[in-house]
């Protein structure tokens, strides 16, 4: 049931990305291009996507806090609260990559449906970047370490 439930969630998420236009890198870059504001060519759509998602998630999470999940014993809320160097450095690196192409992980994976080689290459590079990180910080080599537990209870 867990697998089926998350299939449904991935499917709804993918439809959200598709309908909102956020699978299109040009639309995402159109939002990030704030210097297009004076000329009237700025596209604020991404802000509306986030605002709508936040309203629904905020209300839904308030409900979710009151009860255990249907197919698990308990909710796994992220435990990390530190605003530390890895958070900032990682966010800067991610932001640079996002600004270069206009794809973040969700839309990149959803765009695999187009079977276009630049997208496939991007997702492979993304996987390599992830594995390089895990090897560098020894997560995959020490599965019982607290850092792996922390990683698996990640923010996202």
């Amino acid at each position, binding site marked *: 049931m867990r*697998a*089926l*439930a*998350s299939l449904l969630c991935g*499917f*709804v*998420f993918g*439809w*959200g990305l*598709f*309908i*909102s236009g956020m*699978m299109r*890198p040009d*639309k995402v*870059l159109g939002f*990030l291009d704030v210097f297009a504001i004076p000329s009237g*060519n700025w596209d604020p*759509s*991404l802000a*509306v996507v*986030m605002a*709508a*998602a936040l309203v629904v998630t*905020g*209300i839904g999470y308030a409900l979710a806090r009151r009860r255990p999940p249907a197919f698990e014993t*308990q909710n*796994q809320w*992220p435990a990390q*609260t530190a*605003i530390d160097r890895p958070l*900032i450095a*990682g*966010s800067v690196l*991610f*932001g640079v*990559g*996002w*600004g*270069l*192409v206009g*794809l*973040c992980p969700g839309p*990149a*994976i959803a765009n695999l*449906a*187009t079977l276009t080689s*630049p997208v496939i290459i*991007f997702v*492979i*590079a*993304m996987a*390599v*970047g992830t594995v*390089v990180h*895990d090897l560098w910080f020894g997560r*995959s080599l020490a599965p019982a370490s607290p850092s792996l537990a922390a990683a698996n209870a*990640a*923010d*996202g």
Partner: protein
Amino acid sequence: MANFTPVSAAIGGALIGLSAVLLMLLNGRIAGVTGIFAGLIDPLGTDRGWRATFIAGLIAAPLSAVLVGYTLPVPQMPTSLLVVIAAGLLVGFGTRLSNGCTSGHGVCGIARLSPRSITATAVFMGAAIVVVALTRHVFGG
């Protein structure tokens, strides 16, 4: 603002929120694509089953959209493969280091009013805005 599509943006955003809420109500998990993807490709990763089906659903959605008559636009990507590879590496490494991306920090984290996620989102959005400004207005002409 000729490119602004507020209605489809609001509907799509609400669906993304609905997905995040359902994943918490059903499986007790955060709908963060970074964490789901990384746990799936980690050779020693746990809970591979639900991670794989989430990713499968994510890819199946645009395919089903085509089946019901929508056109799936081919994403406009940089012509330089070097840029595509570099950006992919940065996104993969960076999101793993900061433990989240637009979904995990940007939606699920901010919805929890987590200062950590609000900071991450401000930083990656700021960095992306700087890069787009440089590539489009300084070097891109």
